[in-house]
């Protein structure tokens, strides 16, 4: 063995997976593993039977190199797993592993014994980086983002029961879902582990196999949902909402007007009109926290629109967004609070169902929406926190653009979501003390998200809840030095590195 340290080699077994690869690509993947310095006796190729995939070339290459060929049946894989003397199993699924990739993957698991399964970044052959997100169980249901190289502890795989026959052609995704399900830990190794191309071919029905293991994972944890294929390897999970809870939409307003698409409109009235007329979710309460100066005509229009579902709450103090939201939350009767700005307009009719279904998932704290500027460019697709500062992912991108791992077509974990449109359970809102009064105008939502995350829950962005947010692109948020100080005194060290939206900054 030339490149790999013998001591390391004895602790590592490499499996080259043929699932989803063309015969030629599989051979290239295998050759790269051997060229990285792994001795053939530490490498195995896993292939399905010839009726399912064309693996003849890979088998021939393996035989020629003295590499063991294992059937990709669960029984054969489990037999090999049980007899393995290795600490770690490195699963190479496609692309070309970098010689240092294996070392870095193993070093990461050595350093962090609490991690059960790791995955890393890759790059295309022309040098474009494919930066993967931090562990994201919700995203995993929509997209197997784990990349070409996945490393797992052999003991962890044995503990979760090894490979399942039902997960044929999607074993790695299935393992990751089950590690998370059983309380194990997935982790991003933020280092380049391999090169790969971005071909989206679906050899041997791998995409359908992934969908099946996701459906099975949802069934195992008792989540009722349907899984639709948006495109090969990208799925939309439609969660059934449980018990149709009352959702209180809290909107602070002064009853102001603005010119949108060339005509003047009262923002709060049109925002609520859109919800009343177009939203399919019906069990709603509108809690409008209105300044005393709000025109009477606006109040009358709100009463006409909402009827019995309206709760008007007076705000008669100097502007404080946080305090207005907290007052609305105190008056709200719903099990869930939908925090909403008054300068929005609903686009997708099932936006509340999309957000609520996610909010009811285990471990989810806040859920945010896709917000567009008036010109249909992106205003919000999750927040990014880096260097102690906060911004928006994909800010100003043209609608329809996406990153290489299709983040804008998948529900996914984010550092935070804007309070311009965010859903949170009332219980959680009270558990964390709502919005902080120390941040009356800016960053209050960042603080809210950090408090949510501190409880162990996650912030989720969904691209399936779409609204316009008529905030000016050139809006000057008038951030005071004290805003940043008050935010950073609580969270600065935990806002240094953005790991969820790395391709959208």
């Amino acid at each position, binding site marked *: 063995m030339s490149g790999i340290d013998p001591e390391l080699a004895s602790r590592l077994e490499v499996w080259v997976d043929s699932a989803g690869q063309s015969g030629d690509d599989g051979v290239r993947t295998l050759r790269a593993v051997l060229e990285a310095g792994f001795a053939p006796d530490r490498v195995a190729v896993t292939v399905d039977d010839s009726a399912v995939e064309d693996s003849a070339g890979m088998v021939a290459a393996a035989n020629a190199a003295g590499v063991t060929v294992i059937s990709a049946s669960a029984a054969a894989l489990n037999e090999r797993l049980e007899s393995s003397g290795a600490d770690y199993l490195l699963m190479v699924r496609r692309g070309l592993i970098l010689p240092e990739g294996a070392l870095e993957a193993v070093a990461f698991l050595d350093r962090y014994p609490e991690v059960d399964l790791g995955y890393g970044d890759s790059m295309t052959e022309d040098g474009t980086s494919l930066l993967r997100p931090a*562990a994201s169980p919700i995203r995993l249901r929509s997209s197997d983002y784990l990349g070409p190289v996945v490393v797992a502890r052999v003991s962890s795989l044995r503990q979760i029961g090894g490979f399942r026959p039902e997960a044929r052609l999607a074993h790695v995704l299935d393992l990751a879902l089950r590690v998370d399900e059983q309380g194990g830990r997935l982790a991003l190794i933020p280092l380049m582990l391999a090169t790969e191309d971005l071909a989206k071919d679906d050899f041997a029905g791998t995409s359908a196999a992934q969908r099946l293991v996701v459906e099975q994972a949802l069934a195992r944890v008792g989540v009722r949902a349907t899984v639709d294929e948006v495109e090969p390897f990208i799925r939309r999970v439609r969660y059934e909402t449980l018990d149709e809870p009352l959702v209180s939409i809290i909107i602070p307003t002064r009853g102001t007007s603005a010119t949108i698409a060339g005509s003047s409109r009262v923002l709060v009235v049109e925002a609520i009109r859109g919800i009343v007329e177009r939203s399919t979710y019906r069990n709603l309460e509108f809690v409008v926290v209105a300044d005393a100066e709000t025109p009477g005509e606006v109040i009358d229009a709100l009463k006409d629109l909402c009827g019995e579902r309206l709760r008007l709450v007076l705000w008669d103090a100097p502007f404080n967004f946080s305090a207005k939201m907290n007052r609305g939350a105190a008056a709200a009767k719903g099990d869930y609070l939908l925090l909403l700005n008054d300068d929005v307009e609903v686009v997708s009719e099932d936006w509340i169902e999309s957000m609520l279904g996610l909010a009811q998932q285990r471990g989810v704290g806040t859920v945010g929406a896709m917000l567009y500027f008036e010109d249909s460019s992106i205003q919000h697709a999750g927040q990014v926190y880096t260097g102690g500062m906060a911004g928006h992912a994909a800010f100003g991108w043209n609608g329809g653009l996406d990153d290489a791992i299709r983040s804008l077509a998948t529900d996914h974990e984010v550092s935070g979501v804007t309070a311009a449109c965010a859903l949170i359970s009332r219980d959680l809102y009270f558990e964390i003390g709502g919005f902080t009064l120390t941040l009356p105008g800016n960053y209050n939502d960042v603080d809210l998200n950090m408090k949510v995350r501190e409880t162990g829950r996650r912030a989720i962005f969904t691209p399936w809840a779409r609204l316009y947010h008529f905030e000016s692109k050139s809006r000057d948020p008038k951030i005071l030095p004290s805003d940043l100080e008050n935010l950073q*005194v609580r969270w600065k060290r*935990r806002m240094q590195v953005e790991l969820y939206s790395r391709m959208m900054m």
Partner: protein
Amino acid sequence: MHVPADPKHTWPDAIPESRLSREERLAEERLAFTDRIIGLEQQLKELRKESLASPSETVAMETKYAAIDSSLGQRIARVGLLPKRVLRRVKRRVLG
């Protein structure tokens, strides 16, 4: 709908329930109190010595710092500051 620029209405007078009830007022105060407690806890956490970063964050930060450290700009800066560092060392040795 057109809204007059300078409305004369005082709508809350006609809607007494627009003011919070006693229970609601208490809930509002509870929110502020809970936030103050959490805020102090987090400030203390920020001051602790131990790392607050996850394994992935730690490796990402190390990689970033290593890249900065080996960057051309950093190397030029080190060369530029060399005389100053030498003088400081000499001064320490001479003056104790």
